[in-house]
């Protein structure tokens, strides 16, 4: 049975109406608390076993090439450092547009992901290429400031022309049980994104209290308006893991089943090898199915993954491994 058949048909109303239809009644502090508590629990042993079992999938030949090319197309090539400069961003962007200078059949990545100050340079560098510009915002990575300032920052990157906004949730509020604060902040940021920018909501799962929390935060973020949910900032360990990703994908599946709203997924941080990327794609494929197997609904947030994927692509094409020196470091 296709996953689409599980959705409650085409529910009436706007995207937002459908999202909040999963909540019990009006959106208040108590109703959000009871919603969060109603989210199905997660058994960590079972999750670990499931990803271990999917990890034994043997992906070879054409299916491997398909996965590697898709992984390139799904990549948010990222630089998020205090020492980022216009020059660094320009170089990374040119790699994003043409990842392998000697093999023009390798497609562009999905987006470059930068700090707000770098957005204008990134926009200039990728202009006309189809590569999008994602900006982290909401005082990434900690988000330790009032909601109003976060919204101002988001509005400014949207005005600059960012295509995508990667916000962080207020983990402190979530852990303190202040779900309304978390929800409302996402809602306001979403409003600031308007029709112009896609909103990715970073849960920073490494700071949450285990997989139950990951699932609860996922549901809350989706109900509040997340177009994508994202594991991590990359600044906290552990960042993306397969168990966390599986739990978030299962939450996306349940949310889609209940509301008919499709939400995307972005694991970020710690995914460094082509083999890892393929494992993530297997988990995606077998949890959400082919409807999500596109850069529209799945992204990898990574800075060093791309070169390993390129190396594997060249190996598949030529039968030879080439030294890392043959792949550009931008």
């Amino acid at each position, binding site marked *: 049975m296709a996953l689409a058949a599980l959705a409650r048909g085409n529910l009436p109303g706007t995207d937002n109406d459908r999202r909040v239809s999963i909540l019990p009644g009006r959106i208040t502090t108590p109703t959000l608390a009871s919603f969060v508590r109603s989210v199905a629990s997660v058994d960590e042993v079972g999750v670990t076993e499931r990803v271990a079992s999917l990890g034994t999938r043997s992906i070879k030949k*054409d299916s491997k090439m398909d996965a590697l090319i898709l992984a390139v197309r799904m990549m948010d090539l990222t630089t998020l450092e205090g020492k980022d400069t216009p020059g660094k961003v320009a170089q990374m962007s040119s790699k994003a547009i043409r990842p392998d200078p000697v093999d023009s059949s390798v497609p562009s990545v999905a987006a470059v992901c930068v700090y707000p100050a770098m957005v204008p340079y990134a926009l200039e560098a990728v202009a006309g290429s189809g590569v999008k510009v994602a900006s982290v915002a909401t005082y990434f990575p900690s988000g330790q400031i009032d909601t109003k300032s976060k919204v101002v920052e988001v509005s400014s990157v949207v005005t600059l022309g960012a295509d995508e906004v990667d916000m962080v949730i207020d983990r402190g509020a979530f852990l303190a049980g202040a779900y309304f604060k978390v929800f409302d902040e996402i809602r306001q940021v979403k409003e600031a994104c308007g029709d112009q920018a896609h909103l990715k909501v970073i849960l920073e799962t490494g700071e949450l209290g285990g997989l139950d929390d990951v699932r609860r935060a996922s549901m809350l973020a989706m109900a509040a308006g997340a177009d994508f949910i994202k594991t991590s900032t990359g600044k906290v360990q552990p960042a993306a893991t397969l168990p966390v990703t599986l739990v978030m994908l299962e939450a996306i599946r349940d949310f889609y089943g209940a509301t008919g709203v499709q939400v995307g997924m972005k694991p970020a941080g710690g995914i460094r090898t082509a083999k890892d990327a393929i494992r993530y794609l297997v988990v995606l494929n077998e949890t959400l199915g082919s409807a999500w197997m596109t850069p529209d609904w799945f992204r990898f947030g990574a800075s060093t993954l791309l070169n390993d994927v390129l190396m594997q692509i060249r190996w598949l094409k030529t039968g030879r491994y080439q030294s890392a020196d043959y792949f550009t470091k931008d």
Partner: protein
Amino acid sequence: MAKAELLQAPSPPLDWKYAPSRESTDIVSLNERYGLFIGGAFRAPLSKKYFPTINPATEKPLAEVAEAGEKDVNRAVKAARSAYDDSWGSMPGKERAKYLFRIARMVQERSRELAVLETMDGGKPIKESRDVDLPLVAAHFFYYAGWADKLEYAFPGLDPKPLGVAGQVIPWNFPMMMLAWKVAPALATGNTVVLKPAETTPLSALTFAALAAEAGLPPGVLNVITGAGATGSSLVNHPDVDKVAFTGSTAVGKLIRNSLAGTGKKVTLELGGKAAHVIFDDAPIDQAIEGVINGIFFNQGHVCCAGSRLFVQESIHDRFVDKLKRRLSTLRVGDPLDKNTDVGAINSAEQLAKISELVEIGRAEGAEMFQPDCVLPRNGFFFRPTLFTGVSQSHRIAQEEIFGPVLSIMSFRTPEEAIEKANNTPYGLSAGVWTSKGSRILWMADRLQAGVVWANTYNKFDPASPFGGYKESGFGREGGRHGLLAYLQGIS
């Protein structure tokens, strides 16, 4: 293009098909014909009869094996008796242990070969024979090798002694693993063995016999004779057999018990099951789904402890069944040698016919059937993963062991009702409980009449953990310290 349009311009999703990833069979070298392994060597059967064993995934013959007649059985038991009298029975435990450790290591070294062979002869997916069966086989030999010189510590103050010659008859669902469960404790305790593997899956046991000889196991300590029911019957009824261990159907188990009554032979029986798998509404649902899938589709459902009766709390029944159906559709059914296959071949044409018949009965009784529309291979014995909803306790598919990939789903309202229904079966081998509430797990485990109760998991095995049944699922325990009891005298 306007910004909003650019954002919405979709990239078509990838319909990702995994390329076939077939495990090579080059590592396995088969003889055209196998004799009986008696007294340390392969011997032509006195019966002069042979029968073919086939690959159930292709229906092509793999080899011919001997059919042991009564005279052959007698020869094997004699060989086992003299090995017991001459060497094995009186050998110090630490010496016996050396052989068992050596066998365990050799199984590990050759595990890929043995896994491929197991899959070729039996039809189970290579990922199971590779990742479950063979690791457990080696673990079982290591575990009982460790006990061999510590028997007096296992039963302090007693003087445990071996029984003599053990006649062991094993089924076709886990050929190597059942061999290990039987042979390892028997040899560790100083008994000698005549083993009869199932007629559809004799090859791994014969290969193992050769491996044991290579390990230097004295001739006659382990004898492997092949054949069908008549051979098994001659073996268990042979007057010089001291101990009978049988794993298989309840019907045959009853026959064995009848014929052995009054003979003084020690018996352990591990028989059928119709396990209850109970899902409460506070369970971790997505992991419970995986548990249920593993519980019934592991090894095509050819598992005596398979969770074949699913009880779902009524408040989550419909949602759970929807999720289960979706998950069923992602199971990869097909070539067992493909590393990505989840559900392999049914072991034999006979078993396929039995499964099909019971499924037809289920439909006729009015239960609602669901099967995913996966494509089955043209040749070989395959059956779609199947589930039935709207099943009642009185339906035959809720009562009889199907021993195939078929799940019967019922609902319950309260924990008391779950217990009543779960125990309402002549069987009692295993059960599973899924709930987030620790106290409820203990409450359920106290009341479920089953030899094994798994909580928030299913089908987990470990050589240190005893396994065995209540009621018509048999008696005696295999595995753990308990597993030694079945092969010792002087303990009661």
